[in-house]
């Protein structure tokens, strides 16, 4: 199975089709540019608006990217779409929620006698712990998910684990609802990353608010992504993961414990999802059992957009999708309701032009 996959089959593009495609792409591009140009001229969207749009796109995109990496990591190794990944993120987000909630309940008296919560007295500890716990339980969920729902299906036809993943996703979502209730729960952020606070950047007469929580999310996701990239490229564990991805049996012949590596992959991918979950909570101020569904689908899209199985691809795909989603409707002058229509249309367009994603395997022709 492994061999069938790493030679990602791409059909031989024929010359005429190529030319037609190029022309079509060119026409679409010109139309897009014209449209954007017109809209930009007509609407009075100032520079500040564009900046706001880009920043919010980047932040959302960063989170998509984090989740997408989890998808890609697992896909790279098992060639399966881990449909339950979004739910793992949801569970992570509850981990962070409960840490904040608990810390908020602990009162602390400051030197000057004022009463504040431990959450605000030691925000750094609180945030760190929230991430640790969120990532921890998400990692644990990932670990058991693999062990229970996927490991028995090793070697089954490709779509079977997908269905198992869908079942697991339904299970986890409902477990979340039953455990924590259907209502949304508000994330009590430490004040220093409150969603209303941030840097005021004056632009063209108005001010643009860059929230601390947003920038924090962005920086954190960037850091995590780089760390992960280094892990996969530079460390022995990373090499082992790549080896397992390329050929499980031969990997075993090198002395790699394949099951262990797969477990570890799920743990890492779960932890990433968990961090995204906590971030999502902090940035948006709430969580509930359904919070993983939409980002899950989006991140999956991002992973494919970037070239599924490819870690830098997932990052780029996530950021790209985030930005397209937020700038797209404004730039094209389309109703925001159609945000996802634009996002998916761009996806289709990109894949038609680059059938294996933005950074997917360089388009070599299949060797037979």
């Amino acid at each position, binding site marked *: *199975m492994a061999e069938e996959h790493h030679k*990602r*089959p*791409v*059909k031989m593009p024929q010359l005429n089709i190529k030319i037609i495609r190029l022309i079509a792409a060119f026409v679409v591009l010109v139309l897009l540019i014209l449209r954007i140009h017109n809209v930009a001229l007509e609407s009075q969207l100032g520079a500040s608006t564009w900046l706001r749009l880009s920043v919010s796109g980047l932040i959302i995109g960063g989170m998509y990217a984090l989740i997408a990496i989890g998808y890609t990591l697992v*896909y790279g190794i098992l060639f399966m*779409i881990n449909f339950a990944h979004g739910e793992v993120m949801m569970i992570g987000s509850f981990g962070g929620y*409960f840490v904040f*909630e608990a810390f908020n309940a602990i009162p602390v008296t400051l030197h000057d006698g004022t009463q504040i919560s431990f959450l605000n007295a030691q925000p750094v500890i609180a945030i760190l712990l929230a991430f640790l716990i969120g990532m921890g339980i998400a990692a644990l969920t990932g670990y058991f998910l693999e062990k*229970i*729902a996927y490991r*028995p*299906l090793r*070697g*089954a*036809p490709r*779509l*079977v684990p*997908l*269905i*198992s993943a*869908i*079942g*697991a*996703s*339904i*299970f*986890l*979502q*409902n*477990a979340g*609802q*039953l*455990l*924590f*209730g*259907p*209502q949304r729960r508000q994330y009590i952020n430490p004040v220093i990353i409150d969603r209303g606070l941030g840097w005021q950047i004056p632009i063209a007469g108005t001010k643009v608010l860059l929230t601390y929580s947003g920038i924090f999310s962005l920086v954190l996701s960037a850091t995590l992504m780089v760390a992960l990239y280094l892990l996969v490229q530079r460390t022995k564990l990373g090499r082992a993961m790549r080896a397992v991805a390329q050929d499980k049996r031969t990997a075993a012949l090198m002395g790699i414990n394949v099951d262990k590596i797969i477990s570890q992959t799920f743990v890492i991918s779960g932890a990433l999802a968990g961090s995204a979950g906590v971030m999502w909570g902090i940035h948006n101020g709430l969580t509930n059992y359904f919070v993983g569904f939409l980002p899950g*689908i989006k991140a*999956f*899209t991002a992973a*494919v957009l970037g070239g*599924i199985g490819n870690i830098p691809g997932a990052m780029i795909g996530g950021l790209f999708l985030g930005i397209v989603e937020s700038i797209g409707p404004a730039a094209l002058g389309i*109703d925001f*309701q*159609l945000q*996802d*229509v634009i*996002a*998916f*249309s761009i*996806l*289709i367009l990109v*894949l*038609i032009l680059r*059938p*294996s*994603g933005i950074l997917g395997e360089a388009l070599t022709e*299949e060797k*037979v």
Partner: protein
Amino acid sequence: MNNLHIQKSAKNGLVFAVIIIFLALIGFTVTAASMIQKVFGVEVSVGTMPKYSALIAFLAFIGLWNGWRAAKQTEEHPLQAGHAILAGLASGFVTGLFALGYSLIVGTLQSNGVNVRVYLSSLSPESIIYFLFGQSPLSGGFIQLSLSTVSAAFGALLVIFWDRSQHQFLIWKQKLSAWGNASWPAKLRRNVFVGYIAMGVVLLLLVILPRTWGSYWNYVMGTVGIYVLLGIGLNIIVGYSGQLVLGYVAFFAIGAYSFALVTAPEPHNLNWNFWIAILVAVVASAISGVLIGLPILRLRGDYLAIVTLGFGEIIRILIKSDLLKEITLGPRGIRNIAGPTLFGKSFSSDSDFMYLIILAVLLSIFLARRWQESRIGRAWLAISQDETVAQATGVDTYKYKLLALAIGAAFAGLGGAIFASRNQFTGPEDHVLMVSINVLCLVIVGGMGSIPGVILGAFALKGLPEILRELESYRLLVFGALLVLMMIVRPEGLWPATRPKYEENSPPPVTVEGGSR
């Protein structure tokens, strides 16, 4: 019995501890107990908890299972009674300890006036007290501990009995199958008329049942039937031609909406005839299949999956968007969709619809089989297994893939039209991603590429949740778990596909177990 065994048993106990505590946390213990009580014919009165005996029965059942698993894990042949019971005891004890711990924590919190429910919403005071058998946390916990240990030991005993009787059981089984292969059942099986008679009985049932089983079952079975239709369509795309499509609902939506728009008084007041409208729906879906297929069929595997998923979402969002509100009435949906008429007479009762659906399903099975068992089916299969080589062997892959998509879409369109007509209403909420996922699941749960599989799968996917309604809010939880279980137990599907035979008088072919590639 060594350290390793003890460790294994403890680990098993831990697993069951997690299960028990999870079930308690989501309040499933109460629901399970009430169901047990109901099975014994005692209704649970409103606003009260079931009897404690029901809870004991439920916990004992889990304990038996716990002990069973623990004893099996010793992997001894033959099983030694002492070891097995010890393993069961150990495992049960570990589980019990955790149950005790849980009881203490939750019970103490509860008695100290903490409203646990604020954090864990299923954990009502009554359910906590119920879990503690109405006792103090400590004594309630000890009841749990002893119950778990004792029942696990009995579970281990069961294994021993099973082990002892297995040999006998196997002999019986062999005898039975030998007899089945040798005497009249075998003759019956080989007789073609038996097949015809069986088919006749099924047909007769299909004719009689809709009249007799009431509107609810007509509705549920009608839904199952519509999903069979969808399943057969998607099976052509995914099962036969091997293209993973996750946005199948798009074609369903196009079928439902085009049918609705040409028959409903609002918004266009066209009021077309039912049969013409059905045709329109089928053709519109098929054309949309071709149109979306043209640019994207070059994509393979998961790239195709995500693009079609996107397409499904695009259609759904467009339907409810402001942009198309004039045409589709936006999120409100379309009402007063026409029902079937024949010679000016209306056939819109639930059993009429059931017959219509049965007819449509029979027709689609007939067509799907025709295609499947022809050169087209072979070409699809070849494409699904090795597209590159199929093409180099002379198969016009592009054409066949488009054909599969168009036919699959047409079936979805038919399903959508019947669906809209039966509900007399359709709205964007009917065409969400879950529909695609459900149809994909039923195709694979049933056994990819197999038509009987699709039918079984549709019962599993759409019938099961209806049956599980008894479970109330645990319905989907259990359903999700069952889905995972089904895949693990039968990865090749409930009724896997087989290949037809062409060579006469050939020796029986060697088969390989499992569907692994």
